[in-house]
C-alpha cells in the first residue's frame, strides 16, 4: 500500500481525500492528513454564515476519519524530500511515497503601525471568528480593511455583531477584482442602505491604541475613524514557506509552482488549492481548488487528468445584496463591447461583455438581482441566443434557459457538472433535486444552479409530486389556498370538489389543522370532530397504554403557589403520574378517557387552560427570569414570554411550535433551539427562527436584530402565519426554511421588507386568531354533546378499560404493558 501524506486540512485536502478514497476501490493508497486547526475540515466558504445563525456543526464537511488518518492540531514543520519524510510539531517523522501540499494561504496584514494591537483580527478561521465575537462584546464601532468579496462578508459579520461598521478600500471602488465601477457604485449605495459606510480610494496609515492598549481608531489619509474592532481582509498570501524551505522554487508571484498535473518539479510532490501557483496564477477560490484536487486524485490512481485553469465566476449574496461576476467581467478581450442596464432607482445593475460583433458572450456583472447568473454563466464563450440587451432587461432572462445549452456546458461550476451529466442522471431515474444532487454533486456547494436543476427536470418532463395523499393531488399549501379562497368550512365539501374518496389519516388531520388555523370554531364541532387525530379528539396526549396525559398551560413557566398546589391535588386525587416537562410545564399522565372532563373541570376552575400539548399547535414559550430577578438580564423576558404565549395560544400549524425568550445573551432559555427564539440585547430583542428540527437538530437563525416589543411581535405574527400558509404537512419550521426558495434571505424579505406585499394580510389573520381564541377544554365542559363523547365504552360509560393497569415506580404509577384481555384467537400476529 502506498503512503500519501497531505499537508493541510482545508477544503482542497478534504476534496482530494474524498475523491481519492471513493475511487480507490483497490485500496492502493493509505492517506494521512496533517492539519494545524484543532477541528476536522470545514466549509470555509460558508464561514460568514457562522454569524448569521449557523453553528460550527453546520459548517462541517463529511467525516473522512474512517477513510484516512486525520491528524488535527498538528503542524508540519519540515519536509525532507531526499528521505521522503515530513516532520511535525509533535516530533513525529512520517514517511511518504507521495506528498501533496494543501497548505492554503494566510491573510495579508498590511504593515501599518498598530496592526498587531488587541482588537485587530484576520478573517480566516473559526477561531478568528470567535476572537472577533469576543472583541465585539466591548466595542461599538468596527472597521474592515479591504473592500473585496471577503471584506464585505466580514463587514456583514461586524454589523450582525451590532457594531457601527466601516469598510476601507484602497482601490477606487468596492470589489475591484470582480466588478466594474458602475456595479460598484450601486453596491456601495445598497451597502450604505444597510448602515455600512464604505471609504474607497482610501489608505489606512495606522491603527491607534486607546487607554486600555486595545485598538481604538484608524488613521485614514489624514482623518481618523473610531474602530475598536479591526478586521483585515486585504488579500491572501499563499503559504509556500514549507515548500521553499524544502528547496521547491516558488512561482512568479509566490506560491508553489506546479504543472498542468499539479505536480512540482519533484515527481513525488504535488500542490493544490490556494498554496499552488499554476501558470503564474494563484487562485483564491473553491472551484479551482476542487478541480486541482480532482486532478491529483485521478493522477494518483494512474489517470491522465489535467488542470488547465479555472472558471473564476462568482455569485454571492453580500450583506443581502446579490452580486455576480462571470467570465471576462472587465471586458479585457480585444474589441469587447459592453451592454449595460443600470437602473439605480430599482437597485439593479447588469452588464454583459460581448465580442466585437455582439454575437458571443464573454462575461458579465450583475448587482442587485443576480437571478440571471445561472442561465448566463454557462453561455460564456458561446453564441448568444438572442439580443444581449433582452437577456438582461427585466424579465428577459427567460430566453436563456438550459434548453439552449449544449451538453458540455457547465451548469454547476463549483463541482464542474455539465448539462450532459445532469441529463444522464435524470434519464437514469433522478426524479427530484435531492436525487440530482446525490447523483452528480451539482448544486451542493454555492447552490446558485439549483433553479437550473429544477428547470432541467421540468424540461425532461419529470413531474415532482406534491400530492398530500391518494385523496388530494394538492400540496398542503395549495389546499390551504383553496380553503382560504373558497371559504370552505367542511372536509366533505372540500374532498367532493377537489379530491377523491373519503380521506385518510393523512389528509383528514391536515385539513382539520387548516380549518382550525383559519378559525372555524371548536375543533370538535360538527363534522370537524371526525377529522381529528386521537390527541385532538380527546384534547389530551395518547400514551402507550391507551391512557392520556393532560398538560395545563403555564405561560412563560410562571405559576403561583396556589396553582401549583391545585395541580398536585388533581394528580393525587386521580392517581396520575406527574413530571416536569422540557418546556417548563407539568404533565399529568395516566388519565383514562372518562376521567378527562373531571380533571379539566378542576383545572379550569383554578384558572388553567389547555396547554395544547396534544396539538400541532403552539406549545410553550419558555423563559428565564430576565431583569426581574437576574443580575445579568437586560430585558424582561418573563413578561415577553407570557405575552407571546397568550398571543399565540391555540394557534394550529403544520407542526408543533415552540418558542423561548432569553433575557440576555447567556441564553438560559435555550431560545435558539426553538422554532421562534427571542434573545434580549441591550437595544431590544434579536429574533431567531427555524430552530429545533426534530431528528436533525437545528439552531435557529437570526432573522432580525435589536427590535422593539411591537416590531418583534409584528415580525413573529408574520413569520408564523407565513409558515402556516405555505409549509408542507408535518414540516417543521427548520425544514420549511431550508425548502424555501431563497432561504433565510427570502424569509427576511417577506417578513421584514414585506417583499410579497402580504404582511398586512398575515397580521390580520393573526389578529383574527388572537381575537377568536377560546379555551378548548372549557368548550367541551360547556357543551353536553361534546362531553358525551368522553366515555370509556358506549354501553358502559364509566367502566374503566380492563386492559389498563399500573405498577408503582419511584412512588408513582406507571403503566404495565397493555394486557390483552379477551383477545380473540382470530387476531394474531406471528
Amino acid at each position, binding site marked *: 500500500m502506498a503512503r500519501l501524506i497531505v499537508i493541510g486540512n482545508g477544503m482542497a485536502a478534504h476534496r482530494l481525500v474524498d475523491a481519492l478514497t471513493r475511487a480507490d476501490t483497490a485500496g492502493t493508497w493509505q492517506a494521512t492528513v496533517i492539519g494545524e486547526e484543532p477541528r476536522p475540515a470545514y466549509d470555509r466558504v460558508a464561514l460568514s454564515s457562522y454569524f448569521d445563525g449557523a453553528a460550527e456543526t453546520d459548517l462541517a464537511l463529511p467525516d473522512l476519519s474512517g477513510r484516512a488518518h486525520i491528524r488535527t492540531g498538528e503542524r508540519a514543520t519540515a519536509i525532507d524530500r531526499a528521505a521522503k519524510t515530513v516532520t511535525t510539531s509533535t516530533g513525529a517523522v512520517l514517511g511518504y511515497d507521495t506528498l501533496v501540499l494543501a497548505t492554503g494561504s494566510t491573510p495579508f496584514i498590511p504593515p501599518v503601525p498598530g496592526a498587531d494591537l488587541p482588537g485587530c483580527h484576520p478573517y480566516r478561521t473559526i477561531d478568528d471568528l470567535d476572537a472577533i465575537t469576543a472583541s465585539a462584546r466591548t466595542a461599538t464601532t468596527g472597521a474592515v480593511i479591504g473592500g473585496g468579496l471577503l471584506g464585505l462578508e466580514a463587514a456583514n459579520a461586524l454589523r450582525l455583531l451590532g457594531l457601527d461598521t466601516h469598510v476601507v478600500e484602497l482601490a477606487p471602488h468596492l470589489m475591484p477584482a470582480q466588478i466594474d465601477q458602475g456595479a460598484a457604485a450601486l453596491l456601495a449605495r445598497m451597502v450604505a442602505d444597510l448602515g455600512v459606510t464604505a471609504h474607497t480610494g482610501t489608505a489606512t496609515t495606522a491603527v491607534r491604541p486607546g487607554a486600555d492598549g486595545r485598538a481604538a481608531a484608524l488613521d485614514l489619509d489624514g482623518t481618523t475613524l473610531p474602530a475598536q474592532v479591526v478586521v483585515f481582509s486585504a488579500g491572501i498570501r499563499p503559504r509556500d514557506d514549507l515548500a521553499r524551505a524544502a528547496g521547491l522554487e516558488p512561482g512568479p508571484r509566490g506560491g508553489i509552482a506546479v504543472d498542468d498535473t499539479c505536480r512540482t518539479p519533484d515527481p513525488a510532490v504535488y500542490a493544490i488549492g490556494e498554496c499552488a501557483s499554476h501558470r503564474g496564477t494563484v487562485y483564491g477560490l473553491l472551484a479551482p481548488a476542487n478541480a486541482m484536487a480532482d486532478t491529483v486524485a485521478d493522477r494518483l490512481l494512474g489517470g491522465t487528468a489535467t488542470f488547465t485553469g479555472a472558471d473564476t465566476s462568482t455569485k454571492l449574496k453580500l450583506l443581502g445584496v446579490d452580486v455576480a461576476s462571470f467570465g471576462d467581467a472587465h471586458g479585457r478581450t480585444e474589441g469587447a463591447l459592453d451592454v449595460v442596464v443600470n437602473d439605480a432607482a430599482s437597485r439593479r445593475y447588469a452588464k454583459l461583455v460581448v465580442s466585437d460583433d455582439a454575437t458571443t458572450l464573454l462575461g458579465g456583472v450583475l448587482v442587485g438581482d443576480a437571478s440571471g447568473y445561472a442561465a448566463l454563466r454557462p453561455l460564456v464563450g458561446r453564441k448568444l441566443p438572442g439580443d444581449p440587451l433582452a437577456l438582461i432587461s427585466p424579465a428577459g432572462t427567460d430566453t436563456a434557459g438550459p434548453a439552449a445549452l449544449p451538453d458540455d456546458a457547465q451548469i454547476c461550476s463549483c463541482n464542474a457538472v455539465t448539462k450532459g451529466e445532469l441529463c444522464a442522471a435524470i434519464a437514469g431515474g433522478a426524479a427530484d433535486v435531492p436525487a440530482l444532487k446525490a447523483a452528480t454533486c451539482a448544486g451542493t456547494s454555492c447552490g446558485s444552479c439549483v433553479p437550473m436543476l429544477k428547470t432541467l427536470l421540468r424540461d425532461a418532463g419529470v413531474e415532482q409530486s406534491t400530492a398530500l395523499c*391518494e*385523496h388530494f393531488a394538492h400540496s398542503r399549501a395549495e389546499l390551504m389556498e383553496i380553503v382560504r379562497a373558497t371559504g370552505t368550512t367542511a372536509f*366533505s365539501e372540500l374532498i367532493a370538489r377537489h379530491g377523491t*374518496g*373519503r*380521506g*385518510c*389519516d393523512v*389528509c*383528514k*388531520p391536515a385539513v382539520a389543522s387548516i380549518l382550525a388555523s383559519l378559525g372555524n370554531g371548536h375543533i370538535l364541532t360538527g363534522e370537524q*370532530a*371526525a*377529522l381529528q*387525530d*386521537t390527541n385532538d*379528539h*380527546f384534547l389530551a396526549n*395518547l400514551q*402507550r*397504554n*391507551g391512557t392520556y396525559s393532560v398538560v395545563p398551560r403555564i405561560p412563560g413557566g410562571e405559576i403561583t403557589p396556589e396553582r401549583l398546589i391545585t395541580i398536585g391535588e388533581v394528580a393525587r386525587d386521580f392517581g396520575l403520574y406527574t413530571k416536569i416537562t422540557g418546556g417548563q410545564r407539568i404533565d399529568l399522565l395516566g388519565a383514562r378517557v372518562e376521567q378527562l372532563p373531571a380533571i379539566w373541570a378542576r383545572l379550569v376552575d383554578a384558572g388553567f387552560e389547555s396547554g395544547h400539548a396534544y396539538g400541532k399547535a403552539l406549545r410553550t414559550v419558555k423563559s428565564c427570569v430576565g431583569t426581574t430577578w437576574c443580575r445579568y438580564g437586560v430585558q424582561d423576558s418573563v413578561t415577553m414570554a407570557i405575552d407571546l404565549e397568550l398571543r399565540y395560544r391555540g394557534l394550529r400549524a403544520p407542526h408543533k411550535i415552540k418558542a423561548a425568550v432569553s433575557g440576555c445573551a447567556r441564553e438560559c432559555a435555550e431560545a435558539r433551539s426553538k422554532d421562534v427564539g427571542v434573545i434580549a440585547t441591550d437595544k431590544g430583542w434579536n429574533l431567531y427562527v427555524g430552530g429545533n428540527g426534530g431528528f436533525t437538530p437545528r439552531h435557529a437563525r437570526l432573522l432580525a436584530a435589536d427590535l422593539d416589543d411591537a416590531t418583534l411581535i409584528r415580525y413573529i405574527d408574520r413569520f408564523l402565519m407565513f409558515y402556516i400558509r405555505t409549509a408542507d404537512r408535518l414540516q417543521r419550521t427548520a425544514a420549511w426554511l431550508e425548502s424555501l426558495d431563497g432561504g433565510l434571505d427570502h424569509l427576511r424579505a417577506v417578513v421584514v421588507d414585506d417583499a410579497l406585499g402580504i404582511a398586512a394580510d398575515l397580521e390580520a389573520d393573526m389578529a383574527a386568531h388572537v381575537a377568536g381564541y377560546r379555551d378548548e377544554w372549557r368548550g367541551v365542559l360547556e357543551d353536553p354533546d361534546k362531553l*358525551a363523547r368522553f366515555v*370509556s*365504552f*358506549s*354501553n*358502559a360509560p364509566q*367502566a374503566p*378499560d*380492563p*386492559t*389498563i393497569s399500573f405498577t408503582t415506580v419511584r412512588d408513582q404509577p406507571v403503566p404495565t*404493558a*397493555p*394486557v*390483552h*384481555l*379477551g*383477545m*380473540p384467537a*382470530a*387476531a*394474531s*400476529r*406471528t
Partner: protein
Amino acid sequence: MTAPTTAPAPSRTAAPAWVPACPSHRLQPERGVAVLLPGGAQAALFRTHDGALYALDNTDPFTGAAVLSRGIVGDRAGEPTLASPMLKHRFALRTGASLDDPEVRLATYPVREHDGRVYVAARPH
C-alpha cells in the same frame, strides 16, 4: 329501522347474543365508539359515510392498546379503512385485514341496527 349490517345474516347457525352498543344517534359517521363485551373483550364500532356499520376488535395488534375505536376512518382506493391512533397501521374495515402486515387480521363482529339502537354480536364472526 333495520339493517344495514355487515356481511352474513345474524342467524346463520346459533343466533348470536346481541349486545346493545348505543343509540343510533350517538354513532357519528366516521367516528368510532368502544363497546364492552361480555367476558371483557372490546369491539370498536364504526359507521361509514354511506351508513354502513362495522365492528372490529378494539385492540391494536401492533401495540396491545385497546384504542382502535379512536382511529381515523377513511378509504384506500375506495376500500373503507381504519388507521390506528397508535402507530398509524391501517386495517380494512370490511375484513379486519392489516394493510401493513399480511400476517395480521383483526376479528370482525356482526353488527345490526334496530329500533334506534345499534347492536354488536357478543362473539366475532
